[in-house]
């Protein structure tokens, strides 16, 4: 295990940020800390980085106790949501910073920095100031800067949170590829379930200062431990007293055994998908269909259809 977190608790005044967190992060993996804002995930990341200290509990990085170690003494790279670029230094000097601090020879610094700038596709921007870069470029620079000192662990705090949707998607794919290339143990914090599902090997769902569930993206999506995890990882609706994903409800033209009659209250087209809002005797579910499915079923408002749970579907008892 690369990082072992045991029994970590942290309060800010009366607010409980983290409550007895236990977590093991495998070496070389890409782990997402996923959860709503204020849930404690950033605090946990900052404690691992040494930018914050816990009230109770212990952190070990690569087997060494690190709980009270100053950040500069841990082998940890940190990437901030708002880049934290050194505004007065060029892109080159930003990336070289950690190496200059370590007093490496000039030639070594030069080759290492150029190699990293190439890795993050900024080789032509070495002499620019951070203010002359776009948000996505600044974040790539910040990543190169963190990687320059060859940290054992790379920590990213909502790294794409300040970028617009298009750039965010691009950087997400790029981060995954970069990780496969560099293979450094990486933890990133996000509140975007799509980001977590798409990029990470393992997801840790954190809410109200506690870990709700840990597992691979597929495990979490298909076998959520509770209604919070189920709701946070994807859309959820209710059918006959159970929670179910709207794409796991089958819609039929005719009644068969085990189906529930429903009236269509509203049809909504969102891009390639059709959302049908329905009313049964006991619940008001909505169903996610493709456009083709909706056309085949000849759905129309106020029409009657029959609903059935897909036999492979995950359902949870609604509380």
């Amino acid at each position, binding site marked *: 295990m690369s990082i072992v977190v045991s029994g970590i608790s942290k309060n800010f005044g009366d607010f409980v940020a983290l409550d007895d967190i236990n977590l093991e992060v495998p070496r070389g993996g890409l782990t997402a800390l996923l959860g709503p804002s204020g849930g404690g995930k950033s605090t946990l990341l900052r404690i691992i*980085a*040494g*930018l914050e200290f816990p009230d109770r509990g212990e952190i070990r990085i690569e087997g060494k106790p690190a709980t009270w170690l*100053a*950040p*500069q003494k*841990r082998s*940890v*790279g*940190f990437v*901030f949501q*708002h880049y*934290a*670029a*050194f*505004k*007065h*230094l060029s892109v080159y000097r930003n990336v070289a*910073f*950690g190496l200059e*601090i*370590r007093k490496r020879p000039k030639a070594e610094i030069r080759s290492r920095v150029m190699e990293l700038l190439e890795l993050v596709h900024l080789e032509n921007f070495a002499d620019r100031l951070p203010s002359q870069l776009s948000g996505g470029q600044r974040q790539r620079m*910040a990543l190169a*800067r*963190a990687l*320059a*000192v060859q940290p054992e662990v790379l920590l990213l705090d909502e790294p794409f949170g300040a970028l*617009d949707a298009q750039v965010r998607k691009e950087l997400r794919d790029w981060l995954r590829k970069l990780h496969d290339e560099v293979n450094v143990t990486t933890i990133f914090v996000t509140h975007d379930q799509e980001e977590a599902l798409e990029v990470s090997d393992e997801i840790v769902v954190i809410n109200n200062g506690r870990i709700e569930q840990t597992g691979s993206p597929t495990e979490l999506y298909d076998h959520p431990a509770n209604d919070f995890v189920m709701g946070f990882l994807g859309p959820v609706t209710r059918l006959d007293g159970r929670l179910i994903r709207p794409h796991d409800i089958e819609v039929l033209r005719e009644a068969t055994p085990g189906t529930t009659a429903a009236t269509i209250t509203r049809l909504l087209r969102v891009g390639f998908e059709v959302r049908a809002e329905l009313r049964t005797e006991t619940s008001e579910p909505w169903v996610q269909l493709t456009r083709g499915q909706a056309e085949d079923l000849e759905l129309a408002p106020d029409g009657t259809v029959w609903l059935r749970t897909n036999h492979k579907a995950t359902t949870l008892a609604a509380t």
Partner: protein
Amino acid sequence: MTETNVSDAEVDRPRVPAPTITKPPRAARRLRRGSPVARWTLRLIAVGYVLGLVALPVGTVVQRTFAGGLHPVLESLQNPDLLAAARLGLIVSVISVLINTVFGVGAAVLLVRYRFPGRGLLNAVIDLPVSISPVVVGIALILVYGENGWFGPTLTKLNIQIIFATPAIVMATVIVALPLVVREVIPVLEEVGTEQDQAAQSLGANAVQRFLRITLPTIKWALAYGVVLSLARSLGEFGAVRVVSGSVPGVSETPTLFVNDNYQQFGPKAEQAAFTMAFALMLISVLFIVVIALLRPKEQNQ
């Protein structure tokens, strides 16, 4: 309404740099400027006010300085008391600015980045010299360090002279210029936040390296501005120094005291010396204004 809509649309469109100044519609422009009569009246009042209040008296000093041509001015520059006053003024200002720079940067970092008991008090006390009359500062110094003051007997026993000597002049000057550096540096530190510092820390930089490589370059223009302001304030200080210095010509007379004392003496020589020194002080002030004007835009670019 129309104006707001236009700028909103521009904000929503990504990557198109929004024009910094949107021209208001013609009708609005005319309305804002007012009628030509009102415009000219306002200009006349403003210019007349500044001329009467500032330019006229300042001009008179220049005129009086050079009333007898250049020769008397050069001659008064030979006056040993004038040279001594200039030297003392320079020494006191430089020491005070050094002290206030070190204290100012330290206090600013402390106030912005740390939460500690007494923080509010420190914040308030730093501003005190601006609201207290310098004369009161001078008297307070005498009450503490004077012969009959708190530390008076101890200082006398140790044979240390503070009041009526250079240490008191420096102390008085430091106090009156105390908030200038702090108040320039604090907003910049607040604006940049602590993330760059934390990033440097995670890259292995210790406190000294972080200060020299990150904090100092970040605040350098604000700091330079604060230093120039402090220097100007230190050179121009009169009230507090008047009380604590004793104003002995050639010994504890600063440039401002020299101007005052010589102007009040009778005789053309003394008066000429006073005007020469006053002119020199003014010249330095103009220099400072130029330096500040040069520093300002750079500070805003940061």
